[in-house]
């Protein structure tokens, strides 16, 4: 997977999900429903190495989806 594409798509999803008050939950739901698991894995791996590339919503979503890659 191309990390730059995954980062761009995930950030775009997080700011576009309809209810920004529930942005993390809706981002998690969207990635689960529409992304192949390998894409989420690849994004989580990238995030572990480049924590500043994704926004806070995506970071929180990844922590929920792939806790094994999360920081701290």
């Amino acid at each position, binding site marked *: *997977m*191309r990390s730059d*594409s*995954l980062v761009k*798509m995930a950030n*775009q*999803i997080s*700011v*576009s999900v*309809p*209810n*920004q008050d529930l942005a993390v939950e809706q981002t998690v739901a*969207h990635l689960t*429903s*529409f*992304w*192949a*698991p*390998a*894409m989420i894995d690849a994004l989580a791996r990238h995030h572990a190495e480049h924590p500043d590339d994704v926004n806070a919503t995506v970071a929180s979503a990844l922590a929920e989806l792939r806790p094994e890659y999360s920081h701290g």
Partner: protein
Amino acid sequence: MTIADEVDFGTPSSSSDVDVSLTIDGTSICVPAGTSVMRAAAEAGIAIPKLCATDRLDAFGSCRMCVVDIEGRKGTPASCTTPCEDGMVVNTQTPHVAKIRRGVMELYISDHPLDCLTCPANGDCELQDMAGVVGLRDVRYGFDGENHLDVTKDESNPYFTFDASKCIACSRCVRACGEIQGTFALTISGRGFGSKVSAGAGETFLGSECVSCGACVQACPTSTLQEKTVIELGTPTRKVKTTCAYCGVGCSFVAEMRGNELVRMVPDKAGGANAGHSCVKGRFAWGYASHAERVLAPMVRDSIAEPWRETSWDEAISFAATRLKAIQDEHGVDSIGGITSSRCTNEEVFVVQKMIRAAFGNNNVDTCARVCHSPTGYGLKQTFGTSAGTQDFASVEESDVIVVIGANPTDAHPVFASRMKKRLREGAELIVIDPRRIDLVQSPHVHASHHLQLLPGTNVAVVNAISHVVVTEGLVDTEFVAERCDPASFDAWQAFIRLPENSPEALAEATGVPSELLRTAARAYATAPNSAIYYGLGVTEHSQGSTMVMAIANLAMATGNIGRRGVGVNPLRGQNNVQGACDMGSFPHELAGYRHVSDDTVRHQFEAVWGAPLRPEPGLRIPNMLDAATVGAFRAIYIQGEDIAQSDPNTQHVHAALAAMDLVIVQDLFLNETSKFAHVFLPGTSFLEKDGTFTNAERRINRVRPIMPSRTGMAEWEVTSALATAMGYPMHYDTASQIMDEIAGLTPTFAGVSFDLLDRVGSVQWPCNDATPLGTPIMHEDHFVRGLGNFVTTPYVPTDERTTRKFPLLLTTGRILSQYNVGAQTRRTANVTWHPEDILDMHEADAELRGIADGTWVEVSSRAGATSMRVRISDDVPAGVVYTTFHHPGSGANVVTTDNSDWATNCPEYKVTAVEVRPRSHADVDA
């Protein structure tokens, strides 16, 4: 021209609820008030002679052949223009009327060539038939008087001729051009004996505004307007009903044949989608099916540097299967996938996605709808509960306000556009929301009362502003919302849409739409009895495509414009079977019928029937596959009937991805841009050879019938089945109807569909099941598919693609009438006469600034790439916006489009690309 066994009742039917009773030739007849005497007689089996009358056109009363005797009335009125009345007694056959008819016929024939035996319409000529019916035996006036027999024939149109020497000035062609097509390109010029049919202002047909829909040819009762194929090949001897394979309108046709040779395509009057009309593509542009460049035998090669090697089907299948399995063994089960095609039948698509899920063992299946209407699928499912337009096409005939957003129906969906224009001529109000001045904005007898000429990329802002007006000015249909919609979602949406940031005034600068214009448009939409929205790819192919679809759905629900005739939300689908390809489970996250792969109950149903385990998580979409290919994670792809190397955005990236794969399998009619990267070429079948179904934009499932045997020796579903079997997953069907039976067994919305049903009733619109055995023309009538309609908040998020000093213009792309998508079909027909190359439309102000003259070759560059084409100076586009089509690989418009995409679906943002345009030097052009 007539179809042999098709009854022509002479005048249109009446829809009156009041009946009248009369007697015709001693037979008592009861008909709706407003029915003509001619039609009433025809319905009773009494054929009154006629020439200028046909039931496709309003009564005209010019030929005098249909005169009748009506007791108590003076003279002999024309039966076509005389409405039936209670107690009327009509005699259609009296010596007096017979004498009049014969006399009229003598006059016609005195100025008509007597070449029936060598005339291409011999046996298919209403004048010839009527001469027989009235008993013409001689012409007292002779044939040496002043006449039109030496008039020059106009052969300028590539598909039909105009031989004025055979014209009887019945005006059927002129009326068809106006009433049916709505172009008004033809007229009767001159008076009396000098009257003649004229294209435009005395131009040739090709040089006039004629759009070559062929309605005039079909309406002509003689050989004056005649298909060149009939002149060349002769009269058809058999016919088969089938469905056009171009756009999402899905026109029904009668294919008229001589043996296995197609002579002409005649639109079917009984066709649910087209009601007897057609466009230049459907009626005439089918010659590609027999084009010399068709590939008819399988081909393979070990590397793309090698030439193709023709081989047998068995070897090609074995070659492909062996390599697919080897790649999976080395790189994993998820390293391969495939793409289904919206040009193929439901049955062909279904077996491809089945092969991928069951034989490949993953969900890496996607479809070309990814790059067009995937946001429609997402947006309408979120709001209404299912991915489909809400209406049938005929619904537009009851609309009072029609909103066209990001669509150009006269070019891309011309047969539906004719229907829409007819309603507009009757007085419906038109609102166009589009950066371009599309033809509908101003065309003969059609004028958009509101043209919201927004800047590309600001769709959501405009529709939010319209909804803001609806909510803040008290125009919400509170009763509909209270009864039919989810209250919590409405409250949240209403609170959002009320925000001052969504007002027309706040958004005017961003959208470029004056606030007062937007407000009046909003009021018109919200207050009309029936308002309908039609939209195209100008809605979906944006970074907020899915958001925009939901914004449209919100607006329709808030104003109660859902669930009855004349209203609705209607996506105009691009290709012939976009709807069907999506229905058939082509998306990586959904099985047939839009059910998520994670739904255990649904998945177990498929597993039980298919006898294979299915994966519960989504697979890769097309852009994901291509991205993965560039880093070596995706190694092989099966591409059914798509040319992604030309059609998908950011061509350089697509080429790099395809070049990186170990195996590319292309199934298509012709070698194309994608096949340059392919290792296996599996020849496909044209629609003339297919047996199956297409589903059009109104969810109408139409039969596609083979009118000739497969020229490759295999049906496409047989090829797919053979490949799946060679992969180790036995798949076998004897007929395409067995595949539909399997679809019906697994898909609740198709539960009642079978070839038998379609052959009996013509077509049905899904859902078609026990509750609606003949289908569902209008959806969400009593409740939404999801129960209560769901409002979704739709914040406007500007696209990342913005103009800069380096790229100061916005490029948007679209289609033209004569060409179709990447042009694989239409470029191999005489349609290139009208559009031999892609052209860049540019506003005069932008051109002047750059020293660009009309016809100049220019370079169009973006951050993705650069291409060249010629410029047309046009005020159809506003300053700051340029526009082109993408039909020709030479210009390759997608070289400059970027990899930006819709946030929810990855549908590419074709409609917004920041570019610069510079004149090219002569040296550049020559090079």
